């Protein structure tokens, strides 16, 4: 397969996938869960099976002076209510008010409450974690490719491929957030960081082959060398991706609803990670080697003429 020769087609495909997500992100933003914004989430089961209208539940919140209630029904007997962060005492009075109002026992399935300051801090730290992971990986790749000409290029190409995957994942999350109401929470962050690890894992395997081939085939043109290396590792990349996707699919289909969001993001990220390591990371090395950006504008001028 001549992947390197058609590299701009593959770059274009990546951009086509990333752009809708980025538009979604710009229009609607990334819906953040209370893990990052602060607030409370109360998931309740109405044991008598008669679920009140969300508006009625909102009224109870308002009576108690708990601000910003948002209430949704979930499934047959459950209600998910969000609001500003409340403490255990407020929760207790809220529950007794709800039980009295709707005249049935309520079981708390889940109660989360996060103070506003810790939410902001979590978001900051998340950014820090991603940044640190990037630097750590960049340093490691540069170190392990040290003997190669332009060792830093490998690290930077891997980081670009990684940013590609992050962009795909965040874009998909923004779209899912808008259309399905999913929120980016601490688990989403975990998924994102895993995708980063996986993306680099995959890229390194291809780079490793380039490193090895470069030693043996000194006379081959760099472009052909890269293409050859990609093809040699292609079966492995696809098979590995298949096995990971098989396990993830099993978790998605048969696993609990709690992890559904997490697994979906992982699936998207793993797929993107394999794609970017085959079709982006290594071709970027070729673009850099040939300094092709000097031609980009010239070519356009020729086409325009």
């Amino acid at each position, binding site marked *: 397969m001549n992947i390197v020769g058609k590299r701009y087609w593959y770059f274009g495909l990546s951009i086509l996938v990333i752009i809708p997500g980025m538009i979604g992100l710009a229009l609607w933003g990334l819906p953040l869960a209370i893990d990052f914004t602060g607030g409370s989430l109360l998931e309740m*089961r109405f044991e008598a099976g008669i679920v009140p209208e969300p508006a009625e539940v909102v009224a109870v919140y308002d009576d108690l002076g708990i601000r910003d209630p948002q209430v949704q029904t979930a499934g047959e007997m459950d209600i998910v209510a969000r609001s500003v962060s409340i*403490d*255990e005492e407020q929760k*207790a009075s809220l529950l007794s008010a709800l039980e009295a109002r709707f005249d049935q026992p309520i*079981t*708390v*399935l*889940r*109660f*989360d*409450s*996060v*103070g506003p300051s*810790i939410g902001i801090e*979590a978001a900051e*730290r998340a950014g820090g*974690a991603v940044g*640190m*992971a990037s630097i*750590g990986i960049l340093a*490691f*790749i540069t170190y*392990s490719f040290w003997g190669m000409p332009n060792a830093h290029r490998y690290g930077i190409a891997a980081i670009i491929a990684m940013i590609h995957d992050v962009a795909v994942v965040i874009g998909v999350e923004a779209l899912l957030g808008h259309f399905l109401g999913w929120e980016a929470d*601490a688990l989403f*962050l*975990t998924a994102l*960081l*895993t995708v980063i*690890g*996986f993306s*680099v*894992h995959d890229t*390194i395997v291809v780079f*490793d*082959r380039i490193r*090895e081939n470069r030693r043996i085939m000194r006379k081959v043109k760099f472009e052909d060398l890269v293409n050859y290396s990609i093809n*040699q*590792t292609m*079966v*492995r990349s696809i*098979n*590995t991706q*298949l*096995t*990971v996707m*098989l*396990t*993830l*699919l*099993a*978790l998605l*289909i*048969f*696993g*609990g609803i*709690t*992890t559904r969001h*997490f*697994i979906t993001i*992982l699936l998207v990220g793993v797929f993107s990670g394999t794609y970017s390591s085959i079709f982006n990371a290594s071709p970027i090395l070729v673009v850099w080697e040939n300094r092709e950006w000097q031609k980009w504008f010239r070519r356009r001028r020729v086409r325009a003429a």
Partner: protein
Amino acid sequence: MKVRQGRHLIFIIILVVAALWVIWPGNPGIHIGSYNRDIRVVRGLDLQGGLRVLLEADLPSETDVTSEQMQTARDIIDKRVNGLGLTEPLIQIAGGRRILVELPGIGDPQQAVNIIKETGLLEFVQMTRADIATINNGQVLQTDFETASGIQSTPADSVGAAAGPESKVFHTVMTGAELTSAGVVTDQFGAIKVAIEFDEVGSKIFADYTAAHIGEPLGIIFDKQMISAPIINSAIRQGKAVIEGNFTSEEANNLAVQLRYGSLPVPLKFIESKTVGPTLGQDSLRKSTNAGIIGLVLVIVFMILYYRLPGLVADLALLVYATLTFALFKLIPVTLTLPGIAGFVLSIGVAVDANILIFERMKEELRNGENLHHAIDLGFSRAWPSIRDSNISTLITCAILYWFGNAFGASIVKGFSLTLALGVMISLFTAITVTRTFLHTVLDTIRRADHPRLFGV
């Protein structure tokens, strides 16, 4: 070569047998001499339900909070929570000013919250000489002074008395509410004691009581735990007293601090609180376990279909991997959470990846006309740099995730990174040593002349 291979095989078998013993549900735990340890799966909050709160020092950010203060606060909460009789409470300092409390399997979160908030309670109780003969220091007692949360005393296990003192309710003469100061003193014999002073009301009660009960012991109880029971030698009228109790200087200091500042050396506020109902947790665990098994089976089938004999061998190695990892989770123990299970499942992918890399390399060498044994060795040695480098990058990510989870008190993130990192490390061993040993062993046994089809070439 042969000898080494045989040794490896024996080593692997021993490991697997040990791991199976650890996994065996009826495992009695390790009890050698004074070393006692149960071996069982520790399930996280999300899998069994429970309460998780994050507390922060409620002081302006300019005010310094020392790590000793946080440690003392942690220890106090730990002691109180223990009264709830939960199996695996987790109380740890997260960052400089925070304490993370996780109480898996708690039925009544409200009660737990009250207990954490409660101030330390010092009581002086009426006792007889007969009582102190049967009560050990540190034992939990009941008094007629009711606390807000109604903390239940847990019976101590060391006392053999039939109608044990745990059933007796002692009369509280006075509490630490009438205390004005508390400090550590050392007497002329070097014994460390805690000196306390009462306010006017306290002094009066104390004087009256000690005057009326000369010759009887006075029980000193903190948070319902027996500290000491000195005999009243004479009426104490100056409003000053000394608590003796075989303290180390650290213990005495902690007690003094607790008495001075109510309970905690620093005021704490709740900044995060999560409750997971038990039904949701049970459901998640069952589903995730099933999904994990289905995923594993799918991978096993795929490997056999695609890689034939080596695929089968890799599957065996994968089973060894799953066994060893799960045993290690139980042994350490790693708290299993949903993301933790996901991390484990993902590490299966990593383990298989190493084998796929090796087999693809092996096939290439076979196509180049290498003989089988040599091709296997070449496959392993040539695939190694890729396996090493890619796994190191995953481990770097894990380390950063772990740091992130630790500093932020996000135990789910921590659990995920820990299981993934452990999985990656074990997979390096199984995918390389175990697969290679098995592969050579199988080849030696089946006396294959030339069956490239077995290798999918």
